[in-house]
């Protein structure tokens, strides 16, 4: 582990691109184009074959660079990488992203030898390395962008930080988040992680004020890094939620023989325990992962366990009650004083018991009056609004009201809507107002549970 801090990767003033080229469909071109279009600092293409690339002066070698670059990106064939890294070390560059593949991941003796050489050189010159065999960094705030996947849509600036062991998944997820309008602060794919790994990146994003939620895709941590990972994540989780998707959940068979405990301790069960100890929220599926990210982005902590449901559809209210109860939530009986107030404001055919059913002839006004009552109460910890928009009386003013409420209310406000375009439209408007919307009761319940679990961790550690 090299000692230099990794902040330069994300805030460099100058960058050298080793392997920059004007040739179409080359990684070195895509990366250079990324920097030209968004990066405000000095850019130095390096390639012995050109005097100029895409309008920039091109340097024949690293030695010729006018200054040690804060950051270097290497995109040249694997056999040439060690000498480039060495030259960068001699030049005084301390942060290097190695995009090139052809190392340990090939499983060949030559690949392993080349990678070992990189490790040695990086130690000798105290260079921090991300990669090799990775797609590197996509930084929406500084313009550092080595994601060379041209067909990927880039997500808007925002507050989700993403650490990924898989480059392809990182690309797909950025594309997906762009499509769904979820903003990203910085995304990092670290590939073979010969130096910079999950622990370093977690620490960095933990301290990064542009990142409000950290999402991690992990296959496996490096040997011996587990305890430090727990310690680091545990500290970060007190400040911001860390959501993990762990891939590779099947058990390791090889150790089974020696003891009972070893036989039970498949990789995954120990990871699960570790996540729990570190206050990390684990997502068990892709859907759940993104649901959890969304609820964390928009909702405050959930301080207690009691959920009140307001619905225009009795059946969906019951479905949601079941889903919430199976996740361990209380869907309490409406307290007597609230029941009386509801009776006074609602027509007699409405049901004042929780789930509070405004029935299919409801208008926006009924929602507004009930929400107004619920939002003020200390015995309500979260409000789930079921708004099936197919009924004739709903015009949508309750959505504006929810937006106003969201600004004052210190409880999570979530919504459920099911249907075609009309439902999508409702969902979109609700999201604009900061209400987290779900399409199924089960997904709502699971995401809310993640928020509740995280809240418990934070509350516990604030007291400690």
């Amino acid at each position, binding site marked *: 582990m090299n000692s230099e801090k990794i902040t330069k990767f994300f805030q460099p003033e100058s960058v050298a691109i080793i392997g920059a080229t004007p040739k179409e469909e080359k990684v070195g071109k895509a990366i250079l184009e990324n920097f030209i279009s968004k990066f405000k600092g000095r850019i130095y293409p390096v390639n012995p074959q050109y005097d100029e690339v895409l309008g920039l002066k091109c340097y024949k070698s690293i030695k010729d660079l006018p200054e040690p670059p804060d950051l270097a990106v290497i995109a040249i064939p694997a056999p040439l990488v060690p000498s480039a890294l060495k030259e960068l070390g001699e030049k005084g560059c301390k942060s290097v992203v190695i995009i090139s593949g052809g190392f340990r991941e090939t499983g060949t003796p030559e690949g392993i030898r080349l990678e070992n050489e990189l490790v040695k050189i990086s130690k000798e010159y105290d260079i921090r390395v991300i990669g090799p065999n990775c797609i590197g960094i996509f930084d929406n705030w500084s313009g550092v962008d080595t994601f060379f996947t041209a067909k990927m849509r880039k997500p808007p600036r925002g507050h989700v930080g993403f650490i990924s062991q898989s480059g392809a998944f990182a690309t797909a997820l950025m594309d997906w988040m762009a499509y769904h309008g979820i903003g990203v602060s910085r995304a990092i794919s670290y590939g073979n992680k010969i130096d910079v790994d999950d622990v370093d990146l977690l620490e960095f994003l933990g301290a990064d004020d542009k990142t409000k939620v950290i999402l991690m895709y992990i296959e496996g941590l490096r040997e011996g890094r587990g*305890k430090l990972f727990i310690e680091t994540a545990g500290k970060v989780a007190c400040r911001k939620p860390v959501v993990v998707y762990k891939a590779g959940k099947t058990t390791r068979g090889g*150790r089974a023989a020696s003891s*009972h405990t070893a036989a*039970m301790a498949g990789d995954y069960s120990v990871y699960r*325990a570790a996540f729990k100890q570190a206050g990390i929220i684990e997502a068990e599926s892709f859907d759940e992962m993104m649901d959890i990210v969304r609820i964390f982005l928009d909702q405050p902590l959930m301080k207690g366990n009691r959920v009140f449901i307001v619905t225009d559809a009795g059946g969906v209210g019951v479905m949601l009650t079941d889903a919430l109860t199976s996740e361990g939530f209380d869907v309490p009986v409406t307290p007597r004083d609230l029941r009386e107030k509801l009776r006074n404001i609602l027509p007699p055919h409405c049901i004042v018991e929780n789930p509070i059913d405004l029935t299919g002839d409801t208008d926006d006004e009924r929602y507004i009056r009930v929400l107004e009552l619920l939002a003020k109460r200390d015995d309500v910890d979260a409000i789930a609004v079921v708004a099936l928009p197919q009924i004739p009386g709903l015009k949508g003013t309750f959505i504006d009201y929810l937006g106003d409420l969201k600004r004052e209310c210190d409880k999570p406000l979530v919504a459920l809507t099911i249907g075609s375009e009309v439902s999508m439209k409702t969902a979109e408007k609700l999201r604009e107002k900061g209400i987290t919307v779900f399409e199924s009761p089960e997904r709502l319940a699971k995401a809310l549970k993640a928020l509740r679990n995280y809240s418990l961790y934070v509350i516990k550690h604030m007291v400690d």
Partner: protein
Amino acid sequence: MTPREIIENALNENRNKLLEHEAFEVAKYYGIPTPTAVLVRTPEEAYDLADKIGYPIVLKIVSPDITHKSDVGGVKLGLKSKEEVSEGVKEILKNVQNRAPDAKIVGVIMYKMAPPGLEVIVGGVRDDVFGSVVMFGLGGIFVEVLRDVSFRVSPVSMEDALEMISEIKSSKILSGFRGQPPADKEAIADIIVKTSKLLMENQEIESIDLNPVIVYPQGALAVDVRIILKRGNK
């Protein structure tokens, strides 16, 4: 002997598994409750010590070369007098000599049979990524079939250990089931915490199984302790 001496001794003898009495001694050093056990070498020795141990008595052959003790006639349960005990030792030694003539015999371990109770497992293992890790589960089918266990990475506090106990799906069984009194969860948690410490302080240990730990309304007893050392320590 201290755990360090016991472990070094085993490694010097090229063993990667501690013998029963050694494992008990290591556990006991860390305050894990185990039955009072003695190692005897002759029927006469057993005869003299039986009254002091108390009845019913369990006898087991101790040999680095024998894994399945019952298969070679190396186990006797529920012996109720010193005569039975000395006879038992004689038989075990004879059985083993006949069925495993090449096995090196260290002696016979004898201890008072623990009264029946709820059986749980506490274990520990060294993980490549996380280092020492502890496990808890209920005995028998709960672990073997349902894999209903919980883990924590060391160090674990009493609070962590209690959480591990309540986390398994079948944890209700511990709170009293079909008229059974509730089991002593604090006593189990205490054993988990001590197992974690044992594992952290002895890096040569690859894994430890306390299986079963018998839990009572008050207290718990680890009646079988198995400690495996890492290969290639010496």
